[in-house]
């Protein structure tokens, strides 16, 4: 690296880091690290402002409670850092000396564990083992040098079950001094998480072990997840972190294949990078994937566990699929006129049904799509591949060229191709 490029990235890095990103349209990719490495974008999130104090970069995390909106119509009291969940993404460079002040405004003690980062033992943030927990109202300081690049995370290590279940976590990006692999044009971080928020309740339940009903990217549930807007032919990096309580997430991307380039343990050698369309992100791990899309469009990106794309799906309702309920419906009209049998024809239309719902809930809800209602929610977002991403509307839908959208088959076409649906069995 020459002196000119050093000045270029260091100045931009400071400028970019001092201003939190506004929600909505992501800012254009900016070079923040040596070798033209662009800054990471945290959809629906922010980057932690870092000040310089001599040779040390200084950040301040304030742990506390606030009201968080998972999606319009569903808010809850969460815990996090600097009034958000996930906490602001920390973005620094290999070799940086960092100092983090951590102020505890929670009702109980806390610590911060710098997940995956190799540092002095007393800075590891494990309550009781490596430090005294930070009492409510007090501020502790952590200081260490980042000796290894990579994608890491941070979270409490005191009553972590509660504190993480309520939203305390964040991503920690350490750019390498010398870029590894091809330069990327877009660099995103997505933290996956799972929550238990009972329909109509106002605080996530940290006691839940298995039945999570709100699944999020960066603590947002579709349709509130901000899409990832990228350009056709651009090299894109997505850093995935998982601090869910119990579940791994197989994150699946449509419209392309990618390669796993790094984990929180380090970089994957090119020879070991195999093409994938789904990457499993285990609990307590990060995975970094890279790809170059060549098909423009609106591509789904989601956890492939089907219950993880169903916001506040109930698991106590009986399986009504296929039931003939005419007799029951007649009876129920006498017992409870407001009752309506549901689910007998499947549950795809549930999100669009006009029924009274409990307040502050998004049960079985998805979001609007260009063709119809998208009946997926939760850990779902959209990768928008555009020819000119910097001018494209992140909220706009892809305009399909004529003849490239699936539609109804005409009898003539079916007949010409020898398709007969009269007996429903194409094998005969």
């Amino acid at each position: 690296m020459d002196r000119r490029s050093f000045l270029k990235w260091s100045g931009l890095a400071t400028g970019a880091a001092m201003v939190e990103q506004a929600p909505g349209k992501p800012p254009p990719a900016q070079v923040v690290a040596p070798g033209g490495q662009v800054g990471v974008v945290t959809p629906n999130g922010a980057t932690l402002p870092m000040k310089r104090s001599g040779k040390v970069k200084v950040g301040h995390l304030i742990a506390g409670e606030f009201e968080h909106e998972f999606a319009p119509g569903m808010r809850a009291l969460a815990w996090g850092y600097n009034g958000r969940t996930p906490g602001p993404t920390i973005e620094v460079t290999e070799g940086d000396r960092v100092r983090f002040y951590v102020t505890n405004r929670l009702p109980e003690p806390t610590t911060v564990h710098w997940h995956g980062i190799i540092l002095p033992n007393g800075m590891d943030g494990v309550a009781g083992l490596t430090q005294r927990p930070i009492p409510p109202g007090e501020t502790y300081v952590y200081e260490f040098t980042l000796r290894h690049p990579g994608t890491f995370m941070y979270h409490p290590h005191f009553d972590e079950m509660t504190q993480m279940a309520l939203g305390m976590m964040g991503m920690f990006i350490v750019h390498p001094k010398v870029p590894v692999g091809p330069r990327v044009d877009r660099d995103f971080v997505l933290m996956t998480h799972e929550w238990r928020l009972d329909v109509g309740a106002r605080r996530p339940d940290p006691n839940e072990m298995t039945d999570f009903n709100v699944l999020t990217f960066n603590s947002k549930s579709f349709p509130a997840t901000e899409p990832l807007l990228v350009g056709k032919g651009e090299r894109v990096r997505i850093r995935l972190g998982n601090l869910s309580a119990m579940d791994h997430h197989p994150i699946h991307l449509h419209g392309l294949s990618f390669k796993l380039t790094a984990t929180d343990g380090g970089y994957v050698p090119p020879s070991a990078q195999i093409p994938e369309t789904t990457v499993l992100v285990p609990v307590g791990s990060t995975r970094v994937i890279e790809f170059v899309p060549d098909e423009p469009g609106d591509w789904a990106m989601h956890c492939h566990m089907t219950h993880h794309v169903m916001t506040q799906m109930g698991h106590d309702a009986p399986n009504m699929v296929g039931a003939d309920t005419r007799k029951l419906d007649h009876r129920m009209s006498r017992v409870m006129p407001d009752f309506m049998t549901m689910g007998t024809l499947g549950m795809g239309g549930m999100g669009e049904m006009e029924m009274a719902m409990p307040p502050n809930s998004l049960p079985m809800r998805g979001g609007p799509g260009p063709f119809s209602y998208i009946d997926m929610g939760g850990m779902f977002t959209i990768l928008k591949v555009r020819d000119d991403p910097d001018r494209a509307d992140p909220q706009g839908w892809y305009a399909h060229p004529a003849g490239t959208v699936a539609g109804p088959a005409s009898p003539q076409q079916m007949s010409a191709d020898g398709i007969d649906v009269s007996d429903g069995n194409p094998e005969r």
Partner: protein
Amino acid sequence: MGADRRVAGLVLLLGVVSPGCVSPSMQSDLARVRELTHLPLPQQMAEARDVSTGFPKEVGQLLQQPLTADAAVRIAFLNNRELRASLRDLGVARGQLLQAGVLPNPQVELELRQQEDPSLPFEPQTEIRVEYGLSQAVLSVVRARAARNELEAARYRTAAFVVELGYTVRAAFYAFQAAQQRVAIATQALDAFAAARDASQALFEAGNVPELDVATQDAAYESARATVAQLELEVLERREPLQRLLGLHGEATAWTVTETLPRMAGEEPSFENLERRAVTASLELAETQRRLEGAAQRAGLTRVEGWLPEVSVGVIAERKSPVAPAHGEWEWGGVLHFTVPLFDRRQGTRSAYEAEFDALMERYQGMAIDVRSAAREARNRVQSTALRARQYQQVLLPARQRVMRQTLLQYNAMQLGIFQVLQVRREQLDAELTYVELLREYWTAHAALEALLAGRRTGASMGGPMGAGGPSSLAGGTEAGGH
């Protein structure tokens, strides 16, 4: 009444006319009972009536509409045979009063004797003696006074019966009405069970649940059906006592009642000076007081009888045989009879009357204690049932409705299934069932308190049963068959 007494006493004292002419008629008995009960008792109660002549016109009119508790009481007053018999029983006491005031009859003695000279032809000599017992004539006045107290006591007794009948009719009416209302609620619960059964059947046929779920729901439905059948029997059983109290038979037994028990009144009855008011109003105490006075008068009468010699005065007319020499003329003379109360001074009878008085006095005082206790008990019952019924009316039922509403919302949000919705609905109906029972208890306790303040302790204020309710729960224990 004081004027009546004075008139009657004067008449007895003078002995001019028969006491029967001044005895109160049945109308006056009825008027007196009406006065004692402060109830608008119909005049027809005193009229003679045969069963074959049908019911009073007013009864027919009242039966045309669904009955209210007030209408049922009115019919009972018009038509209850025991009440009519009780009114007529007053005639017994009235007859005894008449008899007590009757003056003794004079004694006439006619004596025919053979003349002393047997040689003379048979021409008997004649002696006529007329005597009148003065002591009994004087004592009849006192005896009538004692009997008058007995008549008044009997009227108090009849008045108490009227008040008690009113309460009994109300209690029976509320019991029937509640039973009918419970069946209606239980039928809705049964529908909910049937819906759960239908749902499990539909799910089983779709292959979504095992047969165990269908069997479980079937069993729950059949259990509920048995419960409803029991409640239906209870309606019939609650109907007949009311039928008897109203004195109805034949086509007149097809009456209906208003569908639901009235909601609780806005204000509870006043409990100020309750014990004093109950004691003052008590017809039982008043009756016992009259009986005490009667016993005292009988004891006094016996004391007088013991010391008062039996005095009778008379006139003697004698006529010698006309054939006897110097005879044939009437000779006149007087006679005075009296007994010397040396041995029989009516000690035994007097002692018995005094003992009766003492016993009555003990009972009177004990009754006063009981009436006060009954007043407190009636107040406690009204307050307790009002508190519980009001809690259901104002808090619990709305809370159950809220649970139902929120359950339906959770169902809409697919957080709950149909079986849980139906279970909550049954629990809501269960609360309504309990509320109906509490309302019945409240109105029964209310009627008992009113009866107490009208002068009569009733079953509810004498520690008797308040009436049994049917099954208290229809919610069923089957949580859900489909999950």
